């Protein structure tokens, strides 16, 4: 008996109940973006039907209530990741914007030519390119943590790599291989070397209990759309002292206390980093997603995914032996339920096309991690990622669909 009853959970996701060509949908692309439960959909609809108003700028009752709803969502995020203060939670467009904010604002204020930023070979482009842009502008130097053969971070030379570094940016969970990294240990190592720790938690927060204080992180970034919430809103959490000392990112309305002809004064946190009209309805939806996840219990979600991941590794190995390669760790303690796979030499595009015939949705491509693809020696992989609404039956359907791919491309 599984910790979570995926069948009951699935019923709360209207889209997952759809059938296409008489076959149920097997959605295995949640690492890309997750589906939305009815409660999230309803929260946004109800808010727009009954409570929508601009926030922060108006005295009328409706606007005050909308502001409360928006700030209520911030407090839900605060509790969900165990942040010390709600104003350490900055709403952004997505994780990408959150990471750009750190590189741009903190980076420009604190880094200069020759300074070292340490990243890893398994980063998403969102945690690479902003630093490369900074490297072009500021002449900072990028270093890279290599990987072990089973797709974990190779930490044997970490102290040398960190020596003199000012930033250590790393993912908490790989979006390609599912690898979970030792975040707490990495944050401690960063601090020991005098660097700040920037954690890309985009794949971690939707699947695990997150505690930024226990991690000892300085910044974390994640996106609502991967955790049952709507697209259009993401989160940057940062330690208060760091956020206070940083210059603003985007300029405009809401982020100022005063604007004169000769200059401006920034607003307090978090408004300082929230220029312009924010994603208001989306914040309400994110709040509802957090309620949904909290009701399930993130420890249960993690346990469920361990069970599904174990079943997937066992089943695929038993059925296909050496014909299938699952990139990443085999130990479920250090991996989530995201699998990049190579199957009988069939190109990922062809594989995902054939799987689609059975409504099995997997992503084919480089998953915005081209440096990692080069490391794995491939151009692309097919990725099956499981979430709280997937169960072992979905693994079986995937395996059956893989079999049918051999019928077409069989060698």
């Amino acid at each position, binding site marked *: 008996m599984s910790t979570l009853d995926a069948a009951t959970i699935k019923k709360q996701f209207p889209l997952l109940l759809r059938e296409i060509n008489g076959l149920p949908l097997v959605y295995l692309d949640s690492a890309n973006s997750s589906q939305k439960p009815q409660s999230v959909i309803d929260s946004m609809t109800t808010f727009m039907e009954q409570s929508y108003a601009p926030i922060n700028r108006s005295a009328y009752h409706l606007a005050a209530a909308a502001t409360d709803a928006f700030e209520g969502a911030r407090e839900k995020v605060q509790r969900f990741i165990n942040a010390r203060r709600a104003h350490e939670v900055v709403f952004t467009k997505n994780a990408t914007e959150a990471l750009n904010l750190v590189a741009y604002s903190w980076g420009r204020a604190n880094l200069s030519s020759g300074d070292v930023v340490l990243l890893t070979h398994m980063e998403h482009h969102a945690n690479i390119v902003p630093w490369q842009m900074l490297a072009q502008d500021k002449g900072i130097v990028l270093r890279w943590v290599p990987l072990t053969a089973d797709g974990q971070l190779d930490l044997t030379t970490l102290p040398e790599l960190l020596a003199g570094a000012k930033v250590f940016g790393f993912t908490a969970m790989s979006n390609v291989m599912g690898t979970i990294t030792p975040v707490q240990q990495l944050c401690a190592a960063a601090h020991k070397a005098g660097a700040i720790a920037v954690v890309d938690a985009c794949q971690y927060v939707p699947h695990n209990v997150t505690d930024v204080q226990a991690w000892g992180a300085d910044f974390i970034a994640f996106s609502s759309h991967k955790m049952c919430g709507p697209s259009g809103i993401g989160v940057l959490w940062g330690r208060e002292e760091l956020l206070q000392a940083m210059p603003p990112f985007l300029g405009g309305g809401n982020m100022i206390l005063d604007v004169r002809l000769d200059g401006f004064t920034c607003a307090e946190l978090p408004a300082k980093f929230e220029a312009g009209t924010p994603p208001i309805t989306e914040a309400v939806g994110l709040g509802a997603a957090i309620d949904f996840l909290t009701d399930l219990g993130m420890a249960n979600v993690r346990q469920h995914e361990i069970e599904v991941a174990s079943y997937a590794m066992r089943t695929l190995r038993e059925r296909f032996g050496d014909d299938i390669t699952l990139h990443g760790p085999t130990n479920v303690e250090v991996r989530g339920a995201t699998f990049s796979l190579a199957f009988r030499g069939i190109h*990922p595009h062809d594989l995902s096309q054939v799987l689609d015939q059975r409504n099995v949705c997997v992503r084919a491509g480089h998953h915005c991690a081209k440096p990692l693809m080069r490391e794995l020696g491939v*151009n692309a992989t097919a990725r099956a990622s499981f979430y709280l609404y997937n169960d072992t039956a979905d693994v079986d359907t995937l395996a059956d669909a893989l079999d049918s791919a051999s019928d077409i491309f069989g060698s």
Partner: protein
Amino acid sequence: MPGLEDLYREIILDHHRTPRNRGELPPPAAHAVGHNPLCGDEIDVYLQVENDIVKDVKVGGQGCSISQSSASMMSQAIKGKKLPEVRALVRRFKGMMSIPDEDGNPIEPDPSVKLGDLEALQGVVKYPVRIKCATLSWNTLLEALAQS
């Protein structure tokens, strides 16, 4: 598997399994590299043009069955052809892939241009994301032509 026969015709799978004209050509042959940013696939087209005739063509790189077979059939179709014929074929092929001309107008099929085996890729149009796979080598060919 029902539904996919249109896409994965036997002739496509054949070119995928045994691609024709694989390899490289040394300079001064023209060489262009095409990328499919969606999936990271790469294709190399080497083109040796003499007296406005494609004397030789080679294809390298990696890709899915659609991009590989399209490249393979393309190489067969253009070898020994005069450049105007090659350009007309590119146009005809893009028309079959529902790609508009430079002005955004649909390309009318020119019956004097024979597609031969390439006709088998017709089914790709029903799978819009795969059109990029089928046209990757053709766009790379245009780049190589621009160099020669």
